[in-house]
């Protein structure tokens, strides 16, 4: 037999877990310390947001919440590479990308606090809301990308799923269509090694998740998802490629879910503590802080000030969240249709009357 096709998967990293550069030449944005500081500030804020959100849930002030602990570089890197006119199709923990795109933290709290108004957010009006049914959003991203392509717009769509999401048919179907139509879309797989309690090895026999792109007929790249320089660089590359009509890319970002799956989960039931401790050494903030410190752009005093600022900003957001009252009952009905049917109007009136009578 002869080989009729062969493939390879590339891996990209600039900054190792000790904050040392692994490559001589950096992407242009990374040569500017201000750009790195901007991203570091956002990652730090996301960390504070996450900690305080979990505290809100633990004290009964928030519903079930999906932590993003450990994913900060992947999420902020995606956000920083995208343009406002690009469209974002997240799963349910990409706060760093959303905040970068203008979504307000209290809006995310509203969503996890059980209020749809959180999805009517301040970010780009075309960005999708969270997709809780796993990998369904890959289709939406493909559809948006198809719309951009058909209209000749220089825009791209970005979807994010986890490693578990790569087991879904929706993922493969949309990869296949993106390849067939050469769509301006970037599929990000945030490989955090765990799909609730199921480890990556039980999810797939593949050596990488980036290689799933091969079946779609396009490029898949693996990147250190805890290295924000690598994430942003590869996302800028893939987005530029998409907007220039050169088709889709799959980016596998290697990271680790340092938290439970959500606040309703207890990862100690299925995960070895030592594994988490090892992963903690790889986490994205430590290495960037060290790199910035080594280059003289950061110090402990600045760090303390930043954390104070993040904390104050989060407190203000929590106040906005808490000050938002329960949505009116009528709002459950008001956005079902542009032209509300009579039957629904009658149900709305009955529900509103019930609200007025019983509160």
């Amino acid at each position, binding site marked *: 037999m002869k080989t009729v096709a062969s493939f390879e998967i590339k891996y990209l990293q600039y900054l190792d877990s000790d904050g040392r550069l692994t490559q001589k030449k950096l992407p242009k944005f990374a040569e500017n310390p201000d750009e790195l500081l901007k991203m570091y500030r956002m990652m730090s804020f996301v960390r504070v947001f996450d900690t305080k959100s979990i505290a809100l849930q633990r004290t009964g002030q928030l519903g079930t919440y999906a932590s993003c602990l450990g994913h900060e570089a992947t999420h902020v890197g995606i956000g920083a590479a995208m343009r406002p006119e690009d*469209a974002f*199709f997240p799963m349910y923990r990409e706060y760093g990308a959303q905040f970068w795109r203008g979504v307000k933290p209290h809006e995310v709290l509203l969503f996890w606090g059980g209020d*749809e*108004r959180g*999805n*009517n*957010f301040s970010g780009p*009006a*075309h960005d*999708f*809301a969270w*997709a809780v*049914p796993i990998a*369904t959003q*890959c*289709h*939406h*991203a*493909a*559809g*948006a*990308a*198809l*719309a*951009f392509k*058909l*209209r000749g717009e220089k825009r791209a*769509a970005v979807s994010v799923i986890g490693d578990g999401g790569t087991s879904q*048919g*929706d993922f493969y*179907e*949309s990869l*296949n*269509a993106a390849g*067939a139509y050469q769509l301006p879309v970037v599929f990000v797989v945030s490989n955090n090694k765990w799909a609730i309690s199921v480890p990556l090895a039980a999810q797939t026999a593949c050596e990488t998740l980036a290689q799933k792109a091969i079946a779609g007929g396009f490029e898949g790249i693996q990147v250190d998802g805890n290295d924000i320089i690598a994430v942003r660089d590869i996302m800028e590359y893939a987005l530029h490629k998409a907007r220039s009509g050169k088709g889709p890319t799959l980016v596998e970002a290697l990271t680790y879910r340092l938290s439970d799956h959500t606040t309703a989960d207890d990862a100690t039931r299925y995960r070895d503590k030592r594994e988490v401790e090892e992963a903690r050494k790889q986490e994205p903030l430590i290495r960037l802080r060290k790199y910035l410190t080594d280059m003289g752009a950061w110090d402990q005093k600045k760090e303390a000030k930043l954390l104070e600022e993040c904390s104050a900003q989060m407190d203000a957001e929590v106040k906005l969240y808490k000050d938002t009252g329960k949505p009116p009952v009528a*709002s*459950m009905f*008001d*956005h*079902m*249709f*542009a*032209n509300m*049917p*009579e*039957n*629904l109007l009658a149900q709305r009136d009955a529900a509103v009357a019930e609200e007025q009578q019983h509160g």
Partner: protein
Amino acid sequence: MAKLAMVEAVTAALAYELEHDPAVVVLGEDVGVNGGVFRATNGLQQRFGKDRVLDTPLAEALIAGMSIGMAAMGMKPVAEIQFSGFIYPTVDQMINHAGRLRTRTRGRLHVPMVLRAPSGGGIHAPEHHSESNEALFAHMPGIRTVMPSSPSRAYGLLLAAIRDPDPVVFLEPTRLYRINKQEVEDNGQALPLDTCFVLREGNDVTLVSWGAMIHETMQAAAGLADQGVDCEVIDLATISPIDFETILESVGKTGRLVVIHEAPKNCGVGAEIAATVAEKAIYSLKAPIERITGYDIPMPLFKLEHDYMPSVARVTAGIRKVMEA
């Protein structure tokens, strides 16, 4: 005015919207150069180009999901599902996303898409090609489900479905695709959604049906008229939301209700109609409500399909039962 079969009326409506609205895109399996397996998109790609009429990879969840993404970005996708039994992979996308994106974003995003699919039996098709699944979609909030019963209503209702800013599942009875040609004026005039059509006025009994079963229902009504039973026939047309005002008004007049549908009886759309009439008009009923439907079994292969689908004789017998109660 041209005489059109229902499938040609569908093509005419698609062509009208493709010509008049640049946001409209037709997509699905084999809808391009082949013009669709039932020829509903016949000639459209040749006329409007490959950027307006797209063949998709063979994946129904993709067709629905991609349409949602396109629609939310301002296009008006009209997607075709090839056969009725292949529509089930779209259910996840339709119920979890198409029907709820507007409300879960409080109106920020919406989904002006149409999911067209053939529906029902009677054409000697292979397995999984003859299903009646309107009740499945009628149960989904945020989605309209529409089923035409004639070429002119197919034309007018499909135009309305495409122009509606929310998702519409448009089920086309394959049994009617090529029978009973009718004068259809290709004038871009839409018919109203959420509205029943009274096809025959009568004072003795209200018959509610839709899709292909309208034809057995009309034949039964004509036969009974010779025997002095005056039937009122209502074409539901929009399966969800149901225009109960028209039905209740009719039952108020006749005092009798028979619902006829091809889909299985259990939790069928007939159950919703019967329950609502019982809730709101039970005191105007002179007889128990009767449902004449398919059985609670999978659609049989075609040797038995006509034993499954309500026949004119079964419909007639059901109406008699109500008249004699």
